[in-house]
């Protein structure tokens, strides 16, 4: 009986294709927008997750800032910064000791500069970065040739450097073996520095929000040196203005950030008249952004839902017309033995079929739009299968809901009057 009704519904819908399409339009648009939002939302979420993971979501960032006065406004006439205002290696070591159970380490990066290294006609763009062991581990860099930085390098501030395979491609035509042991020479300001290449790492393209376009040749890659090497080189690199604390897994980054904030500003920088530490956890920031994105998502889905509602009303409207048009037919069916229930089922099936079809078309359209927009934003994402199934079921439930009134109208028709209807 249900199968017959489905076939019957399809016949009735096919009889007037334009009308059927227009009826479905509201449902199609509604479902398409919901699916598109879900797809893009998921993509952006995944994206954010990847970016967070790259940055280290469990990390707490600390940087030096000018003190704000009682009104929370930073004073513009703050005195010039002195050596003693900066963070120091001693401070970092003290911090590491004090919070030993709660943190995995302190990551320190000192950027020496970005420059173009030239070898006759060949060139490569690098960013010279001094890193401590924790910072290097955080970068999750994979060594593919030679060696990584070792304790000797970190402690004794040797002049060694790790370059990327992109650098080797540009300068050494991809010959990793011949790159090892060669010097990397840069000029910064009036000074000339040289490092020995001891290792090559595999460059990972950054995914998500921080990806940058550009051709392969112009790609900017990091070249890692020990942080002490960077700091000893010149005065500018000596001062520590920023560092990251890697919070242990299982510890709450927000709570740890609060503790650090209290210690740094309550103890260490309490008596400093102009400067203090600004501590924030990436997680809190991320959650804020997440929250905003979610609100946006729900807003758009709300719009989609309104469209669905309008679509459903459209279905109900057309079903009422359809019932009226087929009054005679309904009378005949009843005369031949169709019960009220059968008639009701017939028309509810028709409504469900229209909505299910509209839902499926909407899903296909929505997926197309969603994937299109996602790739424009350079995110990757797919809505969950359960989301899609949910949408189909939802649109079918819609059919039952909006089809009920017209179906009931049909079911309650008096057969004698219906048979007389012109």
């Amino acid at each position, binding site marked *: 009986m249900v199968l017959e009704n489905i076939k019957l519904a399809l016949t009735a819908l096919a009889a007037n294709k334009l009308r059927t399409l227009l009826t479905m339009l509201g449902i199609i648009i509604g479902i398409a927008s919901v699916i598109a939002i879900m797809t893009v939302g998921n993509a952006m979420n995944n994206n954010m997750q990847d970016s967070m993971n790259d940055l280290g979501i469990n990390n707490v960032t600390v940087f030096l800032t000018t003190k704000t006065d009682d009104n929370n406004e930073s004073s513009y006439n703050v005195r010039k910064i002195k050596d003693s205002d900066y963070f120091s290696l001693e401070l970092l070591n003290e911090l590491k000791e004090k919070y030993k159970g709660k943190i995995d380490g302190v990551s320190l990066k000192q950027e020496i500069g970005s420059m173009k290294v030239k070898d006759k006609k060949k060139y490569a763009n690098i960013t010279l970065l001094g890193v401590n062991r924790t910072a290097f581990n955080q970068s999750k860099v994979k060594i593919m040739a030679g060696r990584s930085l070792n304790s000797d390098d970190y402690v004794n501030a040797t002049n060694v450097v790790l370059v990327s395979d992109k650098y080797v491609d540009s300068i050494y035509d991809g010959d990793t073996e011949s790159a090892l042991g060669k010097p990397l020479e840069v000029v910064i300001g009036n000074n000339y520095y040289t490092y020995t290449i001891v290792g090559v790492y595999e460059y990972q393209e950054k995914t998500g929000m921080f990806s940058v376009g550009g051709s392969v040749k112009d790609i900017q890659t990091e070249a890692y040196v020990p942080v002490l090497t960077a700091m000893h080189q010149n005065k500018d690199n000596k001062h520590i203005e920023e560092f990251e604390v890697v919070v242990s897994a299982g510890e709450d980054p927000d709570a740890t950030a609060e503790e650090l904030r209290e210690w740094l500003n309550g103890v260490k920088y309490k008596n400093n008249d102009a400067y203090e530490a600004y501590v924030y956890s990436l997680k809190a920031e991320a959650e804020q952004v997440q929250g905003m994105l979610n609100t946006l998502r729900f807003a758009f889905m709300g719009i989609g839902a309104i469209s669905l509602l309008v679509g459903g009303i459209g279905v109900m409207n057309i079903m009422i017309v359809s019932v009226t048009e087929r009054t005679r037919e309904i009378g*005949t069916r009843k005369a*031949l033995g169709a*019960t009220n229930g*059968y008639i009701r089922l017939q028309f509810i099936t028709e409504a469900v079929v229209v909505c299910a079809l509209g839902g499926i078309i909407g899903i296909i359209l929505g997926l197309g739009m969603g994937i299109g927009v996602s790739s424009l934003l350079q995110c990757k994402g797919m809505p969950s299968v359960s989301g899609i199934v949910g949408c189909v079921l939802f649109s079918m439930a819609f059919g039952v809901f909006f089809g009920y009134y017209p179906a009931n109208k049909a079911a309650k028709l008096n*057969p*004698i009057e219906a048979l007389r209807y012109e």
Partner: protein
Amino acid sequence: MSSDRKTVIDAKGIVKKFNIGKENELEILHGIDIKVYEGEFVSIVGTSGSGKSTLMNILGLLDKPTEGEYVLDGTDVSAARDDELSHIRNQKIGFVFQTYNLVARTSALKNVELPMLYAGMSSRARREKAEKLLEIVDMKERKDHTPDELSGGQKQRVAIARSLGNSPSIILADEPTGALDSKTGRIIMDLFHRLNEEQGITIVLITHSNELAEETERVLTLKDGNIIGERKGANYGFGKYKTGAYGACG
């Protein structure tokens, strides 16, 4: 009309009133008694306004009498509920309407299957029986045609095949030739005669035409809501009816 034949319709004291309790209360049928025996070909003749549509609706279980008893093929249907009536209609009554009332955009075959669908027959059983029935009414070649591809006479033949789907106790034909020309009408009447004589199908024909009624076995005359007369059909069984003058025999 021997009394040891089975009664298919046994209606006693059928009264039908409309707008009961209101100012414009109207009594259309004033206590009608009708008996139809198995295998009979009976007609009910009346002008418009005689109450024959009302009577037909009651006999066909589309409506309930205000007063009276109605036993259809052994079942007392006077107090049956709507769903029960639907079921009994489906099983025991075959309708043939003046305006055919076939379902549009649906093949002749599917139309004939319709009562069997509501009876819960399986898809294959329905199809096989429908094909047989279409053959009986000589419409087999057009089983896939939709109503708008058929002439009036063809549509009526399909309707007659439809009415036989669940092997009903009785065929109720309401002015079956009313919308047809005399030649086609003749073909339809011949079909009814054939079904009645060869297959023993009980037929009740409702008509305003006395001429047509004379072809049937027994004629009941309805006037102003009362059965005022009962007679044998003057032209019944008078040789086989030939295609030609409508209603004339020989």
